[in-house]
């Protein structure tokens, strides 16, 4: 285990840029911590933290100058790996016929700075969706293969976090190129640094670092253990698949539907939700057409439309689809839960619906 001192953090970003990576990381904008291109450490949310609860998110000043002293914001890395809107192809009319011209895939190399362990697991889950089947989403795969991941272990937990329940954190175990644990203690501000790949080792070799002493390693572990012990939420996942699938007619679905606005916020902020729609457009001449792919949500009424009407007309059925997919049928489809316990769906729900509470309500009443 190595140590990177805070004053050398910019050198990590520089090394990544020198290796042709576009550095993407957390930054404060519009009262939230969002992910965007960062050029130096000063773009990071220095000294900020986020207070989260059901339907509630506020930034607050910290007592220290931690770079990663927050949990997760409304955005996740899917914004870059599977962009919210992108053009698949265009077509031009040639008399009775037309020619389809595929959109060139952008060869951007992203370095993601500050990937939380839950988010890293969300990326593994989307890998399965887009790259493990008979067909491969080539755009996703290219971006993913090119990406460099700097994971940051959680040393504090948020009010809506439950990664411990989902076994996805608070420490990144694999799949990163570099992982960091930020330690701000006794006047020192350092990062414990671990490499997880050859790419990671190469970058580390290009920046000044030293070997960590036992005391520092212990501090890091203690902080991570503390984050694990103070999770804001708990989700009991025992037998959860059968619990939900055996209760498709449970009255709790009606209850939650009374509150749910079917706004789709939960699906937009969820780091694993992958549904998309396509939009076919033409210009005014009618000679030029395009196909765009856009994020979609199972909460919209159009989502399940077939001739004659929508399959899932009621809000109840749409909430049930989302939650049973996330926590139950995802296991059948992709061999794991579709939930990583990041808590975003709870925080960003305008009426504060809490997935952990909904599961509990069904569980307790069906004993």
């Amino acid at each position, binding site marked *: 285990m190595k140590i990177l001192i805070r004053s050398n953090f910019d050198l990590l970003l520089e090394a990544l840029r020198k290796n042709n990576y576009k550095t993407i990381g957390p930054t404060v904008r519009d009262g939230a911590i969002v992910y965007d291109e960062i050029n130096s450490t000063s773009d990071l949310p220095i000294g900020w933290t986020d207070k989260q609860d059901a339907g509630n998110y506020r930034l607050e000043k910290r007592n220290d100058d931690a770079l990663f002293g927050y949990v997760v914001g409304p955005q996740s890395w899917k914004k870059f790996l599977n962009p919210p809107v992108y053009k698949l192809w265009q077509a031009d009319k040639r008399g009775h016929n037309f020619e389809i011209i595929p959109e060139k895939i952008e060869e951007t190399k992203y370095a993601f700075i500050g990937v939380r362990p839950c988010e890293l697991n969300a990326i593994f889950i989307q890998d399965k969706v887009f790259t493990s089947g008979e067909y491969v989403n080539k755009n996703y795969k290219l971006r993913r293969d090119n990406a460099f991941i700097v994971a940051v272990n959680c040393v504090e937990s948020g009010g809506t976090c439950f990664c411990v329940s989902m076994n996805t954190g608070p420490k990144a175990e694999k799949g990163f190129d570099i992982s960091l644990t930020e330690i701000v203690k006794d006047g020192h501000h350092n990062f414990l640094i671990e490499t997880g790949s050859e790419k990671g080792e190469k970058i580390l070799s290009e920046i000044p670092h030293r070997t960590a002493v036992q005391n520092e390693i212990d501090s890091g572990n203690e902080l991570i253990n503390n984050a694990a012990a103070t999770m804001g939420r708990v989700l009991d996942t025992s037998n959860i698949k059968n619990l939900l699938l055996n209760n498709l007619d449970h009255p709790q679905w009606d209850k939650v539907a009374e509150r749910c606005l079917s706004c789709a916020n939960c699906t937009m902020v969820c780091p694993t939700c992958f*549904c998309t729609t396509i939009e076919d457009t*033409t210009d005014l001449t009618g000679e030029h057409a395009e196909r765009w792919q856009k994020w979609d949500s199972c909460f919209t009424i159009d989502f399940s*439309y077939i001739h004659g009407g929508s399959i899932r007309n009621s809000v109840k059925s749409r909430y049930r689809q989302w939650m049973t997919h996330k926590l139950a049928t995802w296991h059948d489809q992709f061999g794991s839960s579709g939930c990583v316990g990041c808590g975003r769906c709870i925080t960003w729900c305008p009426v504060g619906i809490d997935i952990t509470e909904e599961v509990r309500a069904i569980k307790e009443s069906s004993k």
Partner: protein
Amino acid sequence: MNPMIPNPYIIQKVKKETQDVFTVELIPAEGEQKFSFGAGQFNMLYIFGTGEVPISISGDPNKSDVLIHTTRTVGTVTKAMSKLKTGDTIGVRGPYGSTWPVKEAIGNDVVIIAGGIGLAPLRTVIYEILRERESYGRIAILYGTRTPEDILFKRELEKLKSRLDLDVQVTVDRAARGWNGNVGVVTTLIPRARFDPKNTTAMICGPEIMMKYSISELMKSGLSAEKIFLSMERNMKCGVGFCGHCQYGPEFICKDGPVFSYKKIKHLFGKREI
């Protein structure tokens, strides 16, 4: 090959089947490639500037030089498609999805039950089993539609009806002057069909409510759930399991279906708004 890019096909022929059903015959615009598919599979068909829809293939799986789709005009895309003419281009992605158990049914009696446009995807099965008629036991084709005017593939059905080795029954919901045939829902034909329930494969395609009652009638006759197959329909955008729209419980209709054994989806089938 990128599964999201449609391949251009030229319309060789458009045929009006009934007042709102038509068939298009397509050949690849480029190259000499054959289009091979299995009975029950579908394609995503793109109409320039209008949109894309999943449509079952209705042609003979053993004739790979021409691609045949039969569809009803129900929405914007199918309406635009119905206006296309010989020489126009359609974008094709596919074939996608699972197939009818034509091979597995060898040695069995076969009951084919179609409702309305559901006959189109099942026509692929009829072609397949008639090619090897002697490999199957008794074959019943039970078809129900709205009115005599809505009878699809009328001349083909008449030909099939005249064969002694097939039991072809047609019924309509509402009769009209000159109709001497059956009146009533397709399920009323099931008790009249002759098959050995212990050794029969059933294949059903039509509205869900029609499939539901057909299944219960078949099970009443003694068929087991694993020998009953049906073709499901849901909204689809990609056809390859990425867009999430066609989910039906754990199944993706586009890649795990559209053809399922009833046994596999029994726990969901008939449940509202799944």
